[in-house]
């Protein structure tokens, strides 16, 4: 009776040279007016294709081959002609996207992009449409709407751009908003603000929302119902609370189990739905000192233009890292947490020597001539694919440091490479593959093996899992936990994800604008954060609703 949208038997193919290949099969769900449905899955699960198919905005190589999408009062959207479809898009069903920067036209003013639907399809007068745009910008929480309406997209921050996108989507008062990973590209505090805004708009506009996300915790907070997708099919669907509490499908269990917030510290992340195993204990405290960073400052000069030179304007500098200090002993695991622009990556790059500090000291204990810097500290990178030379095979990548630094005899190289691959859990058959022929998780394992080839005492991992799906993230984090114990590695884990850091590290540094905001034992920081910013960060983490209610599920499988 109150039904807004019914999807039944949706199937999507991609056309390849070898013929059509199934991407989405037999997807069906219902949505009532004002309801929120979460579509959850990892990359390649077909969740984005599914929601794009609803308004028939699929990539050109993809085809809907079967199914029905019935929108109340409009009929089957899949059977409609293009003309009738433009009446539905924007007015009945609107969309917002993951990357607000690329989804806004860079050469059109914000106000015009919001108003164009009003002018072209509702026949509104320019000045009326403009006034309406200002109202909308005000409603989505933009501080100075009368001014922002004339701004260009590049003049706004990421969060503001997403708000402007939402304003444009809501301009024609749609009944349904499809939100495709709307916060993935944003910092965690901004993400919380956008989700709050969407929640408020649901109330005031009676909007139904389909929230597409890889983040189960986020969906748990926002949606009454959830559908879990994998390999193009819905594997489980139902009330959010019920599914989170009692997942039936093994994949759903794995997805929930890999959520860092549900893993007790000192344990491996559960893989394939199995309960978390206790990780080998690491002897804490009293390790030999390895690294001391004291009052470290890294500044970048803003590019100077000729005009600045002519006018004798002094060069301006940005402090990316501002008087940061800490010490690291062997076996330590230190987490560095912060949002983008906090200087955490620059700090890491300074420690490995990629960036020259402007002041302060980085003291690596030991004699530089005996053990050069590269044998003491190594780094693994965020984007595992771009961290590997695309022209070198896995074996070549791992051989290079051994040969160049004469770490073993030529005859032994092959055995060493095989041992390294085994240590990081890489199939020996992959030795002659190039990075492009590997999965993201495999690439990251190669990156780790390459770092280990030099047997460093310290391993810096700069957002090692943020480009990976959550189940793969669990595997890579487990590998780091194991290596740390086996090799007595000192680990510096840099992440925007507090929950991840909490599970892997005993000590945490919180950074903001290049400075250390708070430092201390991980458990203390989570239990009783001192700095206001830390509290803000913790409050912004999604999952406070869906997974809350004591710790029902959290430690269930463990105890």
């Amino acid at each position, binding site marked *: 009776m109150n039904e807004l949208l019914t999807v039944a038997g949706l199937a999507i193919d991609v056309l390849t040279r070898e013929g059509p290949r199934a991407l989405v099969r037999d997807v069906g769900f219902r949505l009532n007016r004002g309801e929120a449905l979460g579509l959850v899955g990892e990359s390649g699960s077909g969740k984005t294709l599914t929601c794009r198919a609803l*308004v028939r*905005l699929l*990539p*050109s190589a993809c085809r809907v081959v079967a199914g029905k999408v019935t929108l109340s009062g409009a009929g089957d959207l899949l059977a409609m002609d*293009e*003309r009738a479809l*433009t*009446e*539905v*898009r*924007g*007015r009945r069903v*609107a*969309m917002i*996207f993951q*990357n607000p920067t*690329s*989804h*806004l*036209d*860079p*050469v*059109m003013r914000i106000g015009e*992009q919001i108003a*164009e*639907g009003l002018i*072209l*399809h509702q026949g509104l007068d320019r000045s009326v449409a403009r006034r309406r745009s200002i109202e909308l910008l005000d409603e989505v929480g933009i501080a100075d709407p009368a001014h922002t309406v004339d701004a*260009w997209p*590049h003049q706004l921050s990421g969060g503001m751009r997403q708000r402007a*996108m939402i304003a*444009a*989507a809501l*301009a*024609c008062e749609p009944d349904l908003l499809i939100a495709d990973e709307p916060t993935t590209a944003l910092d965690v505090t901004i993400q919380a603000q956008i989700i709050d805004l969407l929640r408020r708009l649901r109330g005031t506009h009676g909007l139904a929302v389909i929230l597409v996300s890889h983040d189960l915790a986020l969906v748990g907070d926002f949606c009454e119902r959830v559908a879990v997708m994998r390999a193009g099919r819905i594997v489980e669907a139902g009330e959010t609370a019920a599914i989170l509490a009692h997942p039936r499908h093994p994949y759903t269990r794995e997805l929930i189990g890999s959520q860092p917030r549900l893993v007790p510290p000192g344990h491996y992340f559960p893989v394939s739905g199995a309960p978390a195993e206790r990780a080998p204990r690491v002897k804490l405290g009293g390790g030999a000192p390895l690294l001391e960073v004291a009052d470290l400052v890294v500044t970048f000069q803003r590019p100077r233009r*000729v*005009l600045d030179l*002519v006018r004798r304007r002094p060069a301006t500098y940005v402090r990316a890292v501002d008087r940061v200090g800490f010490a690291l002993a062997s076996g330590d695991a230190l987490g560095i947490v912060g949002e983008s622009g906090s200087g955490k990556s620059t700090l890491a790059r300074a420690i490995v020597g990629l960036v020259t500090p402007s002041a302060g000291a980085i003291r690596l204990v030991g004699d530089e001539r005996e053990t050069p810097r590269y044998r003491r500290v190594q780094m693994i990178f965020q984007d595992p694919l771009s961290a590997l030379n695309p022209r070198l095979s896995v074996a070549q990548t791992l051989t290079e440091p051994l040969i160049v630094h004469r770490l073993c005899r030529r005859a032994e190289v092959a055995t060493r490479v095989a041992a390294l691959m085994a240590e990081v859990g890489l199939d020996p058959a992959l030795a002659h593959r190039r990075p492009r022929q590997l999965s993201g998780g495999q690439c990251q394992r190669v990156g780790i093996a390459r770092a280990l080839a030099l047997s460093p005492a310290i391993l810096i991992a700069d957002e090692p899992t943020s480009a990976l799906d959550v189940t793969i993230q669990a595997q890579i984090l487990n590998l780091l936990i194991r290596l740390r114990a086996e090799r007595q590695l000192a680990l510096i884990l840099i992440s925007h994800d507090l929950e991840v850091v909490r599970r892997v590290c005993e000590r945490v540094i919180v950074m903001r604008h290049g400075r250390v905001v708070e430092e201390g034992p991980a458990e203390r920081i989570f239990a009783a954060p001192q700095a206001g910013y830390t509290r803000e960060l913790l409050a912004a983490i999604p999952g406070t609703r869906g997974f809350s209610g004591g710790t029902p599920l959290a430690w269930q499988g463990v105890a």
Partner: protein
Amino acid sequence: MERFRFLIWRPVQMLPVLLGVTLVTFVLVRSLPGDPVRVLLGPRARPEMIAATRHQFGLDEPLPVQYLFFLKNLLAGDLGRSIMYRAPVFEVIAERLAPTFLLIAYALVLSILLATTFATLAARNEGRFADHLVRGFCTAGLGLPGFWLGILLIMLLSVRLGWFPVSGYGETWLGHLHHLFLPALTVAIALAPVLTRNLRATLIEQMGADHAQAARSRGLTEGEVFRRHVVPNALLPTVNLLGVNLGWLIGGTVVIESVFSIPGLGQLMVASIFTRDYMLVQGITLVFALTIVAVNLTVDVLTVALDPRVVL
């Protein structure tokens, strides 16, 4: 207008390039083989006469001094005297300027017309017959030697059919346009494929861009998306490409002027090489280089006007 302030200091920034350009032309022409004075005066000239002529042209000074004189004269608008024409280079060039620039502009307009028509046609019918046809035209057009095409066009349209004059420049404006049509078309056929190809690729890329997809999700029709979002975003790379390729277009006119015997700078330049009239070669090279510098400045202005993100 804040963003156009770069126009104030751009000339300062261009100074090194301009100096470099004058230095290159100067060095090039001064290292020409053969003594132009001997060529001019003939083998039986008396030494005093040779010395006097050399002095008259300032050729007896050391090279750095000659360069400074050259710069000083340049600032006064004096490009030296043409040995063959026995007239100031400036005047000789000024006489020939109009046909060349008219040809360049004419060819430019024709290439833009051809390129925008074909690229739009191809992009909006991607993968279909019209697209394949346009792409075929591009591949073929890229490999056509302009001078040969010009000769064929003369043979067919001028000699056989008599539609166009075989050579020359004409007397009236209409006559100019009539005379220059075939040469301009020849140059345009060489340039249009490059432009079409890139414009087509840009249009297709922009049609698939996220912001176009977002516009569709707001209910805009394909035509509205194309007009309002795709074209404005495709304009910028095209203008830049046009700027880069104008150098080629100018080069093309040099050859084509010789084919069609148009009394312009290109033909004059090739002729001066064989008569070793190096002041003239120098002057023409400079004029062409200054044209490019001016074109680049125009492209900068257009870039800033078309793209709000760009700050120069």
